[in-house]
């Protein structure tokens, strides 16, 4: 029995994939499918709250709509630059690949900065959550101060949904930074963390939220230390799938949250 061997018809060197592609890509698709259920649940919770609440607020003035439209344009453009990065990677053009990845990151950062500005404006107007740091004076006198008290579902679902998306965009920028610059990205990430932490007042939720970047730099350092490698076209394509997914989710958040709650006079 010790000499018995198992045989099968599949060649040892190459087994065709059921899905016609490599495992890493299938793994990312499975992750994205599970993540889409997370965002699906948040979007359905937002819609449920909206349907069941007769006095749902419409706090987004023209300025907010313009801001959110520019954010959308940033994300759509970042998807184009990402697909061009994948194209450069399959053509083995390392320089163009890095440049397109950096352009994608720049668009992603533009999105996060504009979104942060929007959040700050809403918080200053009184729309806040109990977990956010207290902003003296604004909650009582701000235009949206009453909204947080009368319809608490709105700030809860708004900040929950858009905050989760902002976190995904931020981690996407980190992911692309690691693929583009590898270990050289770690000091850049630490600089981003310091800038975000020291550049925001203690009354801003981003002051503490910036520590996500510190945590990300620790995780990235461990990953790069355990498995240093040159990322090839398959890695860039898989990173691209994640990035396009983040863009895709925003295509539903933008109309549902912003455009359907616009206050256009």
């Amino acid at each position, binding site marked *: 029995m010790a000499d018995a061997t198992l045989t099968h018809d599949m060649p040892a060197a190459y087994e065709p994939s059921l899905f016609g592609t490599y495992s890493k890509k299938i793994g990312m698709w499975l992750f994205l499918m599970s993540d*889409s259920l997370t965002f*699906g649940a948040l979007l359905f919770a937002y819609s449920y709250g909206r349907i069941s609440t007769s006095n749902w607020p419409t706090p987004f003035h023209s300025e907010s709509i313009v801001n959110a439209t520019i954010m959308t344009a940033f994300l759509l453009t970042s998807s184009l630059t990402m697909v061009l990065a994948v194209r450069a990677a399959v053509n083995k053009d390392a320089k163009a690949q890095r440049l397109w990845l950096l352009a994608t990151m720049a668009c992603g950062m533009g999105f996060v900065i504009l979104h942060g500005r929007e959040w700050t404006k809403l918080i200053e107007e009184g729309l806040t959550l109990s977990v956010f740091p207290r902003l003296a004076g604004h909650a009582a006198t701000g235009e949206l101060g009453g909204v947080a008290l009368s319809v608490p579902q709105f700030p809860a679902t708004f900040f929950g949904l858009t905050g989760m998306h902002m976190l995904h965009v931020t981690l996407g920028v980190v992911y692309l930074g690691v693929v583009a610059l590898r270990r050289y990205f770690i000091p850049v990430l630490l600089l981003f963390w310091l800038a975000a932490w020291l550049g925001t007042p203690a009354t801003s939720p981003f002051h503490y939220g910036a520590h996500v970047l510190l945590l990300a730099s620790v995780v990235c350092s461990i990953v790069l230390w355990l498995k240093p490698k040159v990322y090839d076209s398959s890695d860039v394509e898989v990173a691209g799938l994640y990035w396009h997914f983040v863009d895709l989710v925003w295509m539903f958040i933008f109309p549902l949250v912003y455009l359907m709650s616009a206050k256009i006079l």
Partner: protein
Amino acid sequence: MEPYQQAIAEQVAEEQRHHGKAQFFWVWGALLVMTAIEVYLTYRNMPPIRMLTILMGLSLIKAALIIGFFMHMKYEISQMKWLTMCALVICLSLMLIFFPDAFRILSLGAK
């Protein structure tokens, strides 16, 4: 990466080398135009249900373009397309079961 996985990845990369660059710019332009239409509709006073229907319709078209072209699903084999997309649509559709309850609360006049 394992050698056979590398071989599959090379094959996928080889297929992608033949994708035209212009189509990505067309898709990007179409996405921007649809976004502009959505914003334009916001500035017109439309009944909310009609507005929601149009916005969700445009969002679904935008999602299909992103998945099909940017995420390369259009070029995947049919097993990949059908299994992933059907599973996703079915799971998301199951969440619709909560909406009748939201309407029930509204009709009860709960504050």
